[in-house]
């Protein structure tokens, strides 16, 4: 069953290319060039997700997003040209499910789209999911996903990852980590934090040799990267 996507973007040529690309990936894409047209389409048909450009000729994407949210819970992926963190936060506060800064790679758009579609299927409340770019840490289900795809890690490793992620952007020493994990049941006594970290890396890093998510600070400890969507 092909998922139906509504793309609201005033750039015809871009919409055409994206539509072709997503079409090749098995989506059915409808394009609306204006906010009004998009709203009309949404009233007429049901869509599985909406790709919404922040800057539209006849409407502010943020306003439109807020309006859509009042009438429907269709997943919304915002395309923003600004790429400013403030805009991102605002977009999410207004009910957008994700955002992607222009210029983007179609592959990434597809991955994000799949992720929000999958999220829609699961009933986990949003607050129980920590999201860092393409990485999702689902506290409720105790699973970790990249691009919406579950990655295998052990329960202890999940606890370790969660301890790091909940303190993202701060350096944590091994001792501090051990402290946090004191209550967790150890699965193997002889494994140091470092070994667990490399296992987690193998599961969630795109290239475990060049980690971007869990970084080592020699002699100090680890830091979980706060901003992973660049």
């Amino acid at each position: 069953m092909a998922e139906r996507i509504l793309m609201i973007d005033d750039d015809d040529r871009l919409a055409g290319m994206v539509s072709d690309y997503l079409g090749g990936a098995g989506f059915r894409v409808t394009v609306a060039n204006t906010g009004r047209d998009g709203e009309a389409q949404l009233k007429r048909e049901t869509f599985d997700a909406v790709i919404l450009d922040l800057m539209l000729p006849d409407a502010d994407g943020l306003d439109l997003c807020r309006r859509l949210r009042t009438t429907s819970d269709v997943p919304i992926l915002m395309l923003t040209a600004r790429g400013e963190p403030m805009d991102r936060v605002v977009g999410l506060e207004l009910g957008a499910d994700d955002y992607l800064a222009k210029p983007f790679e179609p592959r990434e758009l597809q991955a994000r789209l799949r992720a929000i579609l999958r999220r829609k299927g699961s009933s986990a409340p949003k607050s129980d999911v920590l999201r860092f770019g393409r990485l999702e840490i689902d506290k409720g289900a105790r699973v970790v996903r990249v691009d919406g795809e579950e990655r295998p890690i052990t329960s202890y490793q999940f606890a370790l990852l969660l301890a790091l992620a909940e303190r993202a952007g701060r350096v944590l020493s091994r001792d501090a980590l051990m402290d946090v994990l004191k209550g967790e049941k150890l699965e193997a006594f002889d494994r140091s934090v470092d070994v667990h970290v490399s296992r987690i890396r193998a599961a969630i890093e795109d290239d475990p040799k060049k980690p971007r998510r869990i970084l080592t600070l020699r002699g100090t400890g680890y830091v979980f990267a706060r901003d992973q969507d660049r």
Partner: protein
Amino acid sequence: MQRLYLQFYVTILVVLAVFVGAAVLLWRVADDDNRTPQYLDVAAELTGALLPDATAPRPEQQRAIEGLQRKLRFDIALYEPDGDMIAMAGKPPPRFDPNRARTGWRRGPGGPNFVLQLPDGRWLVARQVRERPNPIFWIAAALGLVAVAVAIAAFPVVRGLGRRLERLKAGVDRLGGGDLGARVKVEGRDEVAALAASFNRSAERIEALVAAHRLLLANASHELRTPLTRISVAASLLGDAADPRTRESLKRDVAELNELIEQILLASRLEALPTLEQHEPVDLLALAAEEASHYDVEVNGEPVTVSGDRTLLRRLVRNLVENAQRYGGGTPIEVSVTREGNRAVLDVIDHGPGVPEAERQRIFEPFYRLAGASESGRGSGLGLALVLDIARRHGGDVVCLEAEGGGSRFRVDLPAA
């Protein structure tokens, strides 16, 4: 600060004081006029005619003086030409010295007294019985009262003017401080009111211009990124149809252009912002590690927390590492974060050709380029200027030094939280 209203007010007070002083002085000068008025000569003749002869016995003279004293309500004393007192009525007069006496008014301790030399050479000294104080005192008091009244009346006027100017100044300061919505109340219809109105008009215009500028930037950002997005998407869609090297180079160019747009937008945005918008605690070591990881650079040091704008600090680190990579000639890059007293110090070191000493200041100027730097692979020209701007905004600074063993060492110091 010299306060205008005080200057005005002190001027008014000084003018009043000078006026009163001058009036009193003038009075005294006029009083000291030594010419004997004609009427006193007449008075002397008349008095001479009124009094008994000089040869009359003293009791008779005393009676005459007493009679005169009752009629005139003057303290009167009569002297021989040589200064011996003949008769006296009322309070005793001050000591009398005929050698220095002349017909006329004299100031004295009990008020003005006048001295008349009678035609027969006797002296009569009369002093009005003091029912009211000295007229000089009265005039000075009246003038003083007027001065005080003027001073009191002038104060609110002058203070009001001062207050209005101060309010105007506060408005101008607010505008200068970045609050473009700052307006002042137009009070009255005078020059100050006109100034306030002009200020409001100017502020209106500035606000409109800045808003237009912002809109232009936002639109430019959108308009520039739209074709860029198309190029990026198109490059991906080329798939196997294109040489992977061409595709990669295309992607790099897109990324570079995007970066350039972002830096220009950030620079213009910062220009419009006088201060930091965000103040949050940031673990500088963690942030540096995160940024450096994108360049596969390791970071050493100790965790130091600084207070500031995370996005801007991220930009600062990124630009320094990017710069080191661009001009370091492929040498390993070292990044470290340390605490020195109450400062957080970030060092970014490369072992490339380094920067000649004479140019270590100038490289922080926007679009300044080292002589001989290649055209390809160059940055936006804003990278280091932004680093300097961001460091200063956080109460810190950045300097370029020579690294040990050659190369550049960029050292940022920021106040630690």
